[in-house]
């Protein structure tokens, strides 16, 4: 889907949605790999965004991510998605340890008038995404170690009037109390602007 827009610099709503949801898929995989949520062996290397990235080969993870991204792109096209959060929780206690926020700002004009498109070179978008991917990979240097088995969850913040798809349920925000936050790079397709931010549980209480 994304390849359709690659040749030209014109970005349509559909193309932009595809870029963003695809980005989320790769970002989620990258987080799962870099944070060690799933074992290293279950990932395979691919080249994407000019970077070597790792994709999980675990069937249930693959199905989960593809299920999420396909729904995300649908919401992106209708401009109803405000934010996607990948939550890393302790498997034993369900305590939220990390929240990877992807805030999405949608150009409402493009959504309202379907025909409108924007111009931005694909290379430029790719460079921006590349920067985020690099930051995710380097996040292990400052994020606290995940010392216990973890599970993941994906939260989608949508408009209130959205129809809840069958595979989705309403959830609480799964917030971290008194978190540390690190803002990462953002990328912009001129239709969707994605701001990335990671918040994590503050372990060193003696700082206060």
């Amino acid at each position: 889907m994304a390849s359709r827009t690659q040749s030209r610099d014109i970005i349509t709503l559909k193309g932009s949605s595809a870029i963003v949801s695809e980005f989320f898929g790769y970002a989620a995989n990258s987080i799962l790999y870099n944070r060690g949520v799933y074992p290293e062996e279950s990932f395979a290397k691919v080249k994407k965004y000019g970077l070597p990235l790792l994709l999980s080969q675990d069937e249930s993870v693959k199905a989960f991510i593809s299920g999420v991204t396909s729904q995300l792109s649908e919401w992106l096209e209708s401009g109803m998605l405000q934010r996607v959060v990948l939550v890393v929780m302790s498997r034993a206690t369900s305590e939220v340890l990390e929240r990877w926020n992807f805030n999405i700002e949608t150009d409402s004009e493009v959504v309202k008038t379907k025909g409108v498109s924007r111009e931005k070179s694909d290379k430029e978008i790719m460079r921006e995404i590349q920067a985020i991917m690099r930051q995710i990979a380097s996040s292990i240097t400052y994020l606290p170690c995940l010392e216990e088995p973890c599970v993941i969850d994906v939260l989608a913040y949508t408009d209130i009037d959205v129809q809840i798809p069958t595979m989705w349920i309403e959830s609480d925000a799964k917030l971290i109390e008194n978190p540390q936050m690190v803002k990462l790079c953002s990328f912009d397709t001129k239709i969707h602007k994605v701001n990335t931010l990671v918040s994590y549980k503050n372990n060193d209480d003696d700082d206060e």
Partner: protein
Amino acid sequence: MDSGTTSSSISSKTSLSRSRVPFVETNIPPRYPRNSSLNSGIRRTSKASATTQNFDRFIPDRSSTDMDIARCLLTQARRDKENNAVVSPSKEVYRKRLAETILQNRTRILSFKSKPAAPIDAWYNEPSTSNQISHQKSVKPRRHIPQSAERTLDAPDLVDDYYLNLLDWGSTNVLAIALGSTVYLWDATTGSTSELMTVEEEDGPVTSVNWAPDGRHIAVGLNNSDVQLWDSANKCLLRTLKGAHRSRVGALAWNNQILTTGGMDGMIVNNDVRIRSHIVQTYTGHTHEVCGLKWSGSGQQLASGGNDNLLHIWDVSMSSSNAVPNQNQWLHRLDDHMAAVKAIAWCPFQSNLLATGGGGNDRSIKFWNTHTGACLNSIDTGSQVCSLLWNKNEKELLSSHGFTNNQLTLWKYPSMVKMAELTGHTSRVLFMTQSPDGCTVATAAGDETLRFWNVFGNPESQKSAPKSNAGIAPFAKYNHIR
């Protein structure tokens, strides 16, 4: 800090009261500050002074107001925050409302339902339960299920009749099969064959055979409505049970000393083989031939299936509470099958669980909770179900079928995933029975062959497994669905 804010608020009030607004009728001079008393921080004095000048231009009389309580209420919210005390629920709701309004109530948080499997945490030190399970699973090798029969024997003159039960494997590892009017015994340990008995032409053919739990005595149902009891060791006729039925006896089931017989007349009779007047109880409920009859492992419940498409569950405990003596009322009458119910199998690991299979028009395998009579599951097999057997060692069910493939199908329970399809018979696989060790299954089909299948595992690997006693499943008494 608290007193500071209070004094400032009071001073603002006093500044207000200085600029008097017209048309406010008051003949009392405006109250002037009590700053001195408040600033000193002694509240009693302030109260004392209030008695003299307890009013302002908005509230002419303050004598009824308790300033202390007012102050307490005004500053409570902040103190609560400071003390991290519990906020009243109404306040919480209000705060939420406020937050919602400020955020324009625009967001709905959704989470994807089908979560991925939790990672297998082999590299974490603490062993968790799921870790152990996955470990066990990986250790247990996948059982190889041979696709062809281990052995094929010729079975000439086998009566190709769906409603009969002509094959049974006794607890002493001897297989009995009725071919025409003759019952043959095949010793599975030695492989030797012998003839047990032959009935007269006019009394035959044999319509059912069933080993007693001791593996020595065998009941033989005949076309002339008689049931004979034979001693297989001495090959002698012990007894003939007459008068229980009016037509052929196609179904037999032992429950200790009780031999239950099902006839073409739709009657089911409990015969106590020890006593002279052997008919001790009758079960009436079927209107057509009874073709499936099985006692549960605990001996508490009897399942009967008939050509009237009915499945009955009879409970031993209900026999005493009946109006008509020695005549039983069914516990459950189940009419979900669309064809004759011949295939009946009690689950060896769950005593209230019964599997039944329907004939040509039904083609389904159904699972029942015989305690409640609830149908737990129904699977369309696409073919007539002639017989059902549970694996004693694994949660698996084997079904034998007729047209079109004449196959045996091995199902995983409860998922009902097909594990194997065994073909070889060229006609419907009428009868199935299981070796005492539970590993080998013998099948007899309309193609007049008797085949042995190693479908439930290898005898070698099963040797360590606990062997069940004759006819009584090992865990039948302990497990219940509900």
